[in-house]
């Protein structure tokens, strides 16, 4: 049962449709719900940012779709990629899907690259192993992709090993590698978090250019600054649920959920008054093993009322955006 009325008119555009997706981990302390029911569409051609702090479930949500949870993880609900159900799919079919139709770029490019293989071999490995391409074709595509992600002298890099490249160059290679088979969807999980700021700016430029070419991207990040320059829409997660979905401009200019508003306020900004105090959210996000009652943000929310502590608000859709709050902000924090 899909529970987002707002998504009905765009259902045919959804490349990836998540419906009440749940992720649970069996731990020594008992089951831990990392994702507590997420219904969300990734539309063809968009860059959807999924934003949250540690423990919000943002990474587990997409790892679950790709069948990459650790052994004690369990996925319930539905995730359909181009109409094909991923939850409960065999490991074999998920393995075929990963890489071929969904490219994954992670935080640490060294994890994506094998230290003892030349860059060129690694780029070509997947498509050659699967018989998607023959060597000359794969080589040409690899070089073309390396150029398009801004790697200078790709022919020379092709023959080098990962340790001979800088962190930024490795992340560019990892992005190029994710693109080799021509995936329908790119999932980038904190792709610039481990990089220096000037290098981050360059890698963001690469992702921005790829977005301009109509690529569908899910950008998982904790950094709203990165989101502002890249995403079309943003889903904000807190304590295992989506609490707000909006276009990037709506979200930054008129956040509805108090958590989103507070998160925006707490970003250190270069245009703030020098030496000014940062707005901060008191308290901590709940731990995944904590039993929640009512709205998970209520203990930290300045506007929390009786109802918020009693029942958890559902994600309500209207005018193409959604928020899960009993007392949403009318027109943003300032209004």
């Amino acid at each position: 049962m899909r529970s987002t009325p707002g998504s009905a008119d765009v259902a045919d555009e959804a490349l990836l449709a998540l419906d009440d997706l749940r992720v649970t981990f069996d731990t020594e302390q008992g089951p831990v719900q990392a994702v507590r029911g997420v219904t969300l569409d990734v539309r063809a051609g968009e860059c959807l940012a999924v934003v949250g702090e540690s423990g919000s479930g943002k990474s587990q949500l997409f790892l679950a779709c790709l069948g990459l949870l650790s052994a004690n993880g369990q996925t319930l609900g539905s995730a359909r990629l181009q109409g094909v159900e991923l939850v409960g799919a065999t490991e074999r079919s998920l393995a075929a899907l990963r890489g071929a139709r969904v490219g994954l770029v992670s935080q640490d490019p060294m994890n994506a690259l094998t230290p003892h293989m030349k860059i060129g071999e690694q780029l070509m490995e997947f498509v050659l192993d699967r018989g998607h391409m023959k060597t000359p074709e794969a080589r040409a595509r690899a070089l073309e992709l390396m150029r398009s992600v801004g790697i200078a002298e790709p022919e020379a890099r092709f023959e080098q090993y990962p340790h001979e490249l800088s962190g930024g160059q490795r992340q560019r290679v990892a992005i190029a590698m994710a693109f080799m088979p021509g995936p329908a969807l790119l999932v980038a999980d904190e792709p610039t978090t481990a990089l220096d700021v000037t290098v981050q700016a360059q890698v963001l430029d690469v992702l921005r250019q790829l977005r301009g070419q109509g690529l569908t991207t899910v950008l998982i990040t904790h950094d709203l600054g990165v989101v502002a320059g890249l995403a079309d829409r943003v889903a904000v997660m807190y304590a295992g649920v989506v609490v707000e979905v909006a276009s990037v401009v709506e979200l930054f200019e008129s956040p509805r959920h108090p958590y989103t508003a507070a998160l925006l306020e707490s970003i250190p900004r270069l245009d703030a008054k020098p030496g000014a105090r940062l707005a901060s959210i008191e308290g901590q996000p709940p731990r995944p093993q904590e039993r929640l009652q009512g709205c998970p943000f209520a203990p930290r929310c300045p506007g929390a009322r009786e109802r918020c502590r009693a029942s958890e608000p559902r994600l309500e859709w209207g005018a193409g955006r959604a928020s899960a709050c009993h007392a949403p902000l009318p027109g943003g924090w300032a209004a």
Partner: protein
Amino acid sequence: MSTPLLEVRGLRVDYAGSGFLRTRRHTVHALRGVDVELGEGRSLGIVGESGCGKSTLARAVLGLVTPTAGEVSWRGWTIDTSDRARMLQMRREVQVVFQDPFGSLDPRMTAGASVAEALDALEGVTDAATVRSRVAGAFRSVGLDDGFASRYPHELSGGQCQRVAIARATVVRPRLLICDEAVSALDVSVQAQIVNLLADLSRRQGIGLLFISHNLAVVRHLCDEVAVLYLGRLVERAPREALFATPRHPYTRALLAAVPAPDPRVASRLGTVALAEEGAGLSPAAGACAFAPRCPHATETCRRQRPEIEPAGDGTVVACHRWRELATV
């Protein structure tokens, strides 16, 4: 003028080492001559990217690495690791908080015991009543209630752990707190709490801050003065207002331009940062400006001759041949 709290003059630090699988010998020049100064109760931001030498600077100030050349003076005393009594005193006066909040606490000790241990080790305070009241005071000053003293690190969140680490550092009433990427690993909402906490502690207790960070936006909130390092050299040092309003060095400008603007209307207009890729093939020629291979404004002069650091008005110093002409661009 009174003696500054901390004075770093011409500091060079080389790490001698052997290469991958010991196939070659090489020396890493972590710091190649850096001058900074910090007054009592002031805050200095040290900014730069990986490999710029900012953490080495912290280690040199703590007396954990021996300078190859130059010197570090603590309240007028040139750090001399063989003077054990004076070193012990300095170890109390200079405290440090690191990036990884879990890694800096002993997992087998309660938060309270960790803080009490610092009191014992650095001040020899063991009297139970005194310890209890000092520890409770330190916890209060970092915004944790007494209940946290009996908790273990694994029972704390990242932000709470970092508060305990700050309590442990400040319980001995230091004059200088070195923060080495102390808020980088924290979530945005928690990062803001810790930045505010550090600002409060510095103001209320008159503690000087040496705040090492790659994040200029955080530095802007916290520091009176900022030093920008690039490949072991100081390229610009300026009071906060001057640095952010009129950055002189092209690298400082690039760093500022690279901070993602949390505003979709601004961010979507930004073009490519005109900065060459870091890494292989870009090591500067000997005697050249270290930033020249990546600098969009580099000329023949920059590739031949290293600019000396010079005063550039408004209390700033900069190492760039072209800062005057670039100021009008």
